[in-house]
């Protein structure tokens, strides 16, 4: 577990030293502010539901940018050798990287607190859906990050890593429409893979374990694939 912390601490330090961190955070907050003022202030509803469903899409674009460096950059500069020859298991190593980007995501989301204070000042919002939405947003974000970490392990090129994770995430996003077109049992099966569909209930203030399990499973699968991918480098 000590190894996880060592990797995580370094990763966080380097993340917050990179301009990408600030650019991503700035765009995230800006868009959040826009949706917030457009929807909440514009329509005058003390309801953050719509803001959040837009933010899932924003995260879908931000997560690949937050993770593209994590493994690709090290492969390019040869630092991966240092980590592969250190007595830290590949699993701990990947967890360290993953927790670091999760903390980055959390810190970014923490900045949205100011908006709740605004809402609270002017109205008495229903806190239930806000908390579940926020939780859902984080959970979805975490699974996006896992996808991003995986694609970063595939290449030494950050841009390609980001493109691959966009590709994978967009597929899971759009699979819903595909499901409708296909129809029948297959359609139903495909529909269950939809990232957006699983988010809807969180937005309504419903905590359904099947959705939580969906995001956690997705996270676990992509982290597992990352570990396998890194270990397979030894076979080369």
């Amino acid at each position: 577990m000590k190894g996880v912390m060592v990797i995580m601490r370094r990763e966080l330090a380097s993340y917050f030293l990179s301009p990408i961190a600030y650019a991503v955070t700035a765009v995230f907050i800006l868009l959040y502010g826009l949706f917030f003022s457009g929807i909440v202030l514009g329509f005058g509803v003390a309801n953050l539901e719509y803001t959040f469903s837009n933010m899932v899409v924003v995260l879908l674009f931000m997560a690949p940018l937050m993770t593209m460096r994590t493994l690709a950059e090290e492969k390019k500069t040869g630092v991966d050798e240092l980590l592969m020859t250190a007595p830290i298991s590949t699993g701990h190593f990947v967890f360290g990287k993953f927790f670091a980007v999760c903390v980055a995501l959390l810190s970014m989301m923490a900045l949205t607190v100011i908006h709740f204070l605004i809402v609270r000042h002017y109205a008495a919002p229903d806190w239930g859906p806000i908390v579940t939405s926020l939780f859902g947003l984080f959970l979805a974000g975490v699974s996006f990050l896992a996808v991003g970490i995986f694609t970063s392990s595939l290449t030494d090129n950050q841009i390609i890593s980001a493109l691959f994770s966009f590709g994978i995430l967009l597929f899971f996003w759009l699979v819903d429409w595909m499901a409708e077109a296909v129809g029948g049992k297959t359609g139903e099966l495909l529909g269950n893979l939809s990232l957006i569909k699983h988010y809807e209930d969180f937005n309504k203030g419903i905590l359904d374990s099947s959705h939580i399990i969906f995001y956690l499973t997705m996270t676990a699968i992509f982290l597992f694939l990352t570990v396998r991918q890194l270990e397979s480098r030894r076979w080369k």
Partner: protein
Amino acid sequence: MNIISVKNLKKVYGDFTAVDGISFDIAQGEAFGFLGPNGAGKTSTINMLTGLSRPTAGTIRIDGIDGIKKIKKAQSIMGIVPDESNLYDEMNGFDNLTFCAALYGMGKAERQKRAAELLEEFNLKEAGDRPFKAYSKGMRRKLTIAAGIIHRPKILFLDEPTTGIDVESARQIRRLLSDLKRQGVTIFLTTHYIEDAQRICDRIAFIVKGRIVKSGTVDELLRNAGQEQVIRLTLSQGIKGIKNQFQQAFPALRIEAQSENDCLITAPERIALAPILQYLDSKGISVFEAKEARPTLEDVFVKVTGIEAGKPHKEKAGEHR
């Protein structure tokens, strides 16, 4: 006790065999050198020993641990200095060192103390807070070595530690390796410089095209190469005119004229000098100097490999891949 024991180690990339079934043992505290030309399989071997790449076949035991199945355990006693730098460009020297120490589980206070010590020892104190990417080649090499030893490894692997750095830094590195050896650290290094091998290593293996073609202690290798006794005479004049006569007078010896006033005398056994001196004196030639010409490790290397060490060798026609 053998701290490293390698048997029939093999690495195949696609259909190309880079390491072709090598076996060797390294005793605790020994300095062992892999000497060979470019592409011989030195880095491939180190990579398998350090867990960077998996052997196609063969076994590795490191300090009694299975070096293939239990590689993570074995890695905790290793220090590794790869042929190219493996540190973070954007981090400064000090942070790179403490991070490496942390990877091996070293506590905060100790790793900071040790990093400061090493920076001092390698004359990198001022550069300690500069980012690694701003380092010169020699500085990078030194910091990479410092990072490899910060956790006080029992075995140190170095892939061409002195390549691409100036004479003074190379000397400093050799001195450091000698110190580490004295402290009982086992050293495995690869190099194409005979000088490194001869100065640092107790034992050397020549590796060519993935095979160990000869190995032994430096003395053994030299002795084997020098079965013949060779003496170089420096004379007052050349022996060209009397060469045949001279040779007939001493049929057991092989006499060759070298440069203008030198000649080489070779024999399978030790050479008695008095009769030779007398003979030359009788011909009116003075002998100013008689010197034993010892074979160098380079001679041995050239002899067993047919390759000029440390120089790019010409590929024979038809051998190009």
